[in-house]
């Protein structure tokens, strides 16, 4: 039975249009197996079926764990290792065997009843975290049941590309997805910064979030959806007319993106000849080829936190050296900006953080943590960077700087390491290009004083906005106050750029503001040199830069700085984009 045709407004988080049937992942509302009682002689074959399903499940889980370990996501992999132990647990096995042998239940029902029995322990518990533990048991139980029913989940799901629907997507749920069988995403929870959004944008697939649960629960694999990642519209079982209209729009989109890719060889220059460098943000699990394909100007932000995820095994100097060297060699002459460990705030890392804080965003994070509690780890990373630097154009950037002493102290550590390396006769960079992230209001305000100490600035807009506006960026209740176009943000960026100009420093912008084309006129007019963003955004950003005139952007900024609120600024920008790049609106 098809769900009745309907049309709802969700929140767009990744652009594009997807049309296709549904596939649900994550927690599946499944039918409860019937308590089937079989003839006693059926017990043996049922046991055999159960054990073969166990074995199959074990292989699948081990495969998932390996896949994550290859991506260096050892924390996530640990969950699958725990699931394997549950699967092999004698307590579970003998309970199921008892159900089959003594009560003559079908293997399905015996597994179901066992999982229910064990997870019932958690029902009466008040602790929300503990209640979730029942999910681990159910997850394992469901995997066994899937294998018992003989349906290969992957095969059913993937006989055609589908739109993934889920309550929420977690990294462990998406790890098994094959890119070529996914058209787009529609989820209940999430925001522009959630895993769903980040994943969708990195795969260049459309996504919407905020889909009502009642609707998601009703959908079956027979239902067809249209996901409009531009407007946020979600259409269930569209009529022919609507579908054709969207197919047309989809083809136009593809043409648009195709035409963008054609322009990869054109310089990102404004009509009056100013070049705004477009660099890529890269994570440790991404390949440098992605950067090459979009003809980006090297890497503007390489996050290293990923390398430090495994609590049991922090990477030593040699392993880090090899990772950094590989990246620098791949980049050739192009610059590579590597950010030192940025842990704390919302980037929790059990291997590195020593204590819980009331307010981690205002706590010991980034450079603070490195200098106060993790000097050795920090020194090891800097040593690896100093050594790797000889293989390319390396820039090292410090996160969360809020004091000039943090920069001076880091420079002392670097000088000492350089002496050590020289004594040991190990090749290393003699003059390390060092920069700071401007992501706290204090750093933007004392940019004048920081400038003589460093070689470049990189403005991290996500945190700069959050700290300036005093808005927790994960708190939906105050999301309306999180406005990149607020004049206060523009003043801070301008102050940073002016300080940099005086000392001839290079200024880059990373963070979501650099990714969205609607902010490009402002950043260009403010005088930054580079925008760093996910590779997927580079082609459209290149087109945007090429549509703009720098002089006009500077005039726009002069007006914007006089505004009293974000909406006024936004309207000014909108008017300009409407005039010189109308096809960019809504992107």
């Amino acid at each position, binding site marked *: 039975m098809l769900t009745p045709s309907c049309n709802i407004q969700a929140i767009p988080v990744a652009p594009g249009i997807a049309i296709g049937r549904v596939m649900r992942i994550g927690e599946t509302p499944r039918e409860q197996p019937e308590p089937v009682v079989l003839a006693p002689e059926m017990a043996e074959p049922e046991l055999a079926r159960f054990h073969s399903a166990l074995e199959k499940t074990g292989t699948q889980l081990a495969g998932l764990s390996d896949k994550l370990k290859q991506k260096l996501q050892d924390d996530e992999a640990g969950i699958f290792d725990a699931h394997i132990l549950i699967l092999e647990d004698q307590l579970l096995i003998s309970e199921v065997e008892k159900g089959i042998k003594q009560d003559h239940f079908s293997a399905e029902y015996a597994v179901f009843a066992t999982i229910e029995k064990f997870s019932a322990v958690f029902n009466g518990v008040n602790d929300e975290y503990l209640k979730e*533990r029942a999910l681990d048991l159910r997850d394992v139980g469901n995997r066994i049941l899937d294998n018992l029913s003989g349906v290969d989940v992957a095969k059913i799901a993937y006989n055609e590309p589908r739109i993934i629907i889920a309550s929420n997507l977690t990294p462990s749920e998406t790890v098994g997805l094959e890119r070529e069988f996914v058209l787009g995403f529609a989820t209940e929870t999430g925001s522009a910064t959630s895993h769903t959004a980040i994943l969708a944008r990195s795969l260049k697939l459309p996504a919407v979030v905020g889909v009502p649960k009642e609707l998601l629960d009703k959908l079956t694999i027979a239902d067809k959806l249209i996901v409009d990642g531009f407007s946020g519209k979600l259409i269930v079982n569209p009529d022919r007319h609507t579908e054709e209209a969207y197919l047309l729009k989809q083809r136009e989109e593809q043409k648009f993106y195709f035409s963008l890719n054609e322009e990869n060889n054109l310089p990102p220059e404004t009509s009056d000849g100013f070049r705004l460098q477009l660099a890529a943000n890269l994570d440790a699990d991404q390949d440098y080829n992605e950067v090459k394909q979009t003809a980006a100007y090297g890497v503007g932000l390489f996050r290293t936190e990923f390398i430090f995820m495994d609590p049991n095994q922090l990477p030593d100097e040699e392993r880090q050296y090899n990772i950094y060297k590989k990246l620098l060699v791949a980049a050739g002459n192009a610059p590579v900006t590597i950010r030192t460990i940025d842990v704390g705030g919302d980037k*929790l890392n059990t291997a590195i953080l020593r204590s819980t804080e009331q307010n981690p965003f205002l706590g010991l994070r980034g450079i603070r943590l490195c200098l106060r509690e993790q000097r050795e780890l920090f020194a090891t990373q800097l040593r690896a960077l100093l050594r790797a630097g000889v293989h390319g154009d390396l820039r090292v950037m410090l996160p969360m700087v809020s004091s000039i002493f943090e920069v001076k102290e880091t420079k002392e550590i670097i000088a000492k390491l350089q002496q050590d390396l020289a004594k040991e006769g190990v090749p290393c960079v003699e003059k390390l290009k060092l920069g700071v992230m401007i992501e706290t209001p204090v750093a933007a305000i004392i940019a004048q004083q920081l400038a003589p100490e460093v070689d470049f600035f990189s403005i991290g807009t996500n945190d700069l906005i959050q700290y300036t506006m005093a808005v927790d960026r994960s708190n939906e209740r105050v999301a309306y106050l999180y406005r990149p176009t607020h004049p206060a943000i523009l003043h801070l960026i301008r102050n940073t750029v002016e300080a940099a100009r005086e000392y001839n420093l290079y200024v880059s912008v990373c963070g979501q503001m650099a990714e969205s084309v609607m902010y490009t006129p402002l950043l260009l007019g403010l005088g930054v040199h580079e925008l760093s963003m996910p590779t997927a955004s580079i082609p459209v950003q290149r087109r945007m830069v090429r549509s703009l005139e720098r002089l006009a952007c500077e005039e726009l900024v002069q007006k914007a700085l006089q505004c009293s609120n974000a909406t006024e600024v936004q309207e000014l920008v909108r008017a300009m984009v409407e005039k010189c790049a109308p096809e960019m609106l809504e992107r």
Partner: protein
Amino acid sequence: MGSMLSEKVTVGNAMGLHARPAAQIVHIAGKFQASLSIRKPGSASAADCRSVLALLMLAAGSGTELEIEASGADAREALDAVVAYFDKKFDEQ
């Protein structure tokens, strides 16, 4: 059987004794000969540290007090290893 050693611990991490630490305890217990178990004080039954399921079913949330018991050849070392893991709050904040 040698004498029974026991020690009290508190679950110190926010998420309680969930799947990953339970699996880690199974892993630690596997390194020793001693038999190791964990019980909620006053409870008649104890969870065998070699069963991840039994450990999970302790339903031990943050702040729960537990008693770890060890007996056998290397009971002392085994007990110390598990207690140390609790003291480290399972390597979580």
